[in-house]
């Protein structure tokens, strides 16, 4: 039986980690992620988990220690945000290419500068090409559910990749929400007692990991790594189906909200989806055909599925909570628009950069996006690249 609890996002993640009971957690505190290792270290001190907790001196060391432990064959988790993730950068790529599954909970926070501790997605979106699987979460419930599924996805024999579970700093990490937690035994059973590690330094056979790779083999190893990311698509759906049986909660690559007959749609990531759903409901009550797609899986990117989901809209606004500084829209915009090419052609596709550095995103902001879309449908005139909520 699941239990109803009231927890912040960070508490939900820390309690999820307690239920998973990993072999090693190496972490360094950073706002707004600090509570995760803080709560978890209490579980360690109380003897409530069997985990080796390694309080390291930096995030580079945190990720290095995690990789070492994962290379040894352990089940490993950590947490960070913003500049902490940035300091892990080098090791992120090493972990993905060494094919060491581990789970990293990221409370999304703006990157400096100017220094800012509040929410946007510049940290994890910057790491989008590091080879990690990325799961995004609208709420504390989704952060908890994604965390538990992440263990199984990353450790699957066809995947063997590290996984980031992302949720919005302060908005989700610190707000207390009602959610359902699974029973300890169910989580233990779902993740399995030990990690499945086909290659491990502490296995029965002697081996080397992370060797120098010269031009004659590097490309083949990267190609094999790319295949693991492709394989992850099926595994994510399989794990979601199994998790649904256990929890009753349904997960896929993304959530389609009132998309069946939608003419104007928004594509969005994380907590803003909650505000946008409220706006969709209000506009639907006024008879407007609006819908929403909330991305859960950004890596691997579900390009075909998203294009199919947008096949019948007239206009779509794609919202990035970061500025990619490409001078041509954010990463989500560019990837969704590229996915639509040749599959869902002839649509109005616009980019909105919004909510940087924790700028509030209100229902009025989202209404403006839908109203821009309807105006574009009616007049055929519109701006492709937009900033939402900045003082002009």
């Amino acid at each position: 039986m699941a239990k109803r609890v009231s927890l912040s996002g960070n508490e939900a993640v820390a309690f999820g980690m307690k239920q998973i009971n990993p072999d090693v957690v190496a972490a360094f505190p950073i706002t707004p992620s600090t509570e995760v290792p803080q709560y978890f270290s209490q579980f360690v001190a109380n003897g409530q988990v069997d985990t080796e907790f390694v309080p390291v001196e930096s995030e580079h060391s945190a990720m290095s220690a995690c990789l070492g432990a994962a290379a040894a064959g352990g089940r490993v988790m950590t947490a960070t945000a913003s500049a902490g993730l940035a300091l892990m950068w080098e090791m992120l790529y090493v972990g993905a290419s060494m094919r060491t599954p581990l789970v990293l909970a990221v409370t999304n926070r703006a990157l400096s500068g100017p220094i800012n501790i509040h929410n946007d997605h510049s940290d994890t979106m910057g790491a989008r090409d590091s080879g990690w699987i990325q799961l995004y979460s609208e709420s504390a419930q989704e952060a908890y559910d994604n965390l538990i599924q992440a263990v199984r996805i990353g450790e699957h024999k066809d995947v063997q990749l590290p996984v980031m579970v992302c949720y919005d700093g302060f908005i989700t990490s610190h707000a207390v929400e009602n959610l359902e937690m699974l029973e300890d035994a169910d989580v233990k059973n779902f993740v399995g007692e030990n990690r499945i590690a086909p290659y491990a330094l502490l296995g029965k056979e002697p081996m080397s990991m992370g060797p120098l790779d010269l031009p004659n083999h590097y490309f083949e190893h990267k190609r094999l790594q790319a295949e693991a990311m492709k394989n992850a698509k099926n595994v994510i759906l399989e794990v979601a189906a199994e998790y649904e049986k256990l929890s009753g909660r349904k997960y896929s690559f993304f959530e389609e909200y009132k998309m069946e007959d939608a003419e104007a749609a928004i594509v969005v990531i994380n907590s803003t989806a909650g505000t946008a759903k409220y706006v969709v409901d209000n506009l639907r009550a006024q008879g407007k055909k609006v819908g929403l797609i909330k991305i859960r899986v950004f890596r691997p990117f579900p390009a075909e599925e998203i294009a199919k989901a947008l096949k019948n809209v007239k206009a779509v606004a794609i919202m990035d909570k970061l500025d990619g500084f490409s001078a041509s829209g954010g990463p989500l915009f560019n990837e969704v628009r590229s996915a639509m090419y040749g599959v869902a052609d002839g649509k109005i596709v616009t980019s909105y950069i919004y909510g940087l550095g924790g700028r509030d995103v209100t229902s009025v902001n989202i209404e403006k996006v839908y109203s821009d879309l309807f105006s574009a449908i009616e007049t055929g005139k519109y701006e492709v690249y937009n900033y939402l909520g900045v003082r002009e």
Partner: protein
Amino acid sequence: MSNRKVNITPDTTWKETTPGGVIVDAGNAEDFKTGDWRSMRPVWHEDKCKHCLLCWVVCPDNSIKVENGKFVGFDYDHCKGCGVCTKQCKFGALDFVPEE
């Protein structure tokens, strides 16, 4: 090389290779023929050799072949041609000549 669990060759495809380049066989350095890096080649003059084996001591690549306490030749598959053995030889028994 045939006793290896995974035979990695210059023609190994991405489907055949190991994830992340994991090396599953210990002692595999022997499979890597570093001899083709050589631009200079050590040459042995048997008549001048006293079999002191100081060349064996200084060789960084274990490429001096010894049998029954006597120098018998070079392992040219692995000798990189660094020339340390020829430099230290006090008897003129080792020459260092360009590879052809």
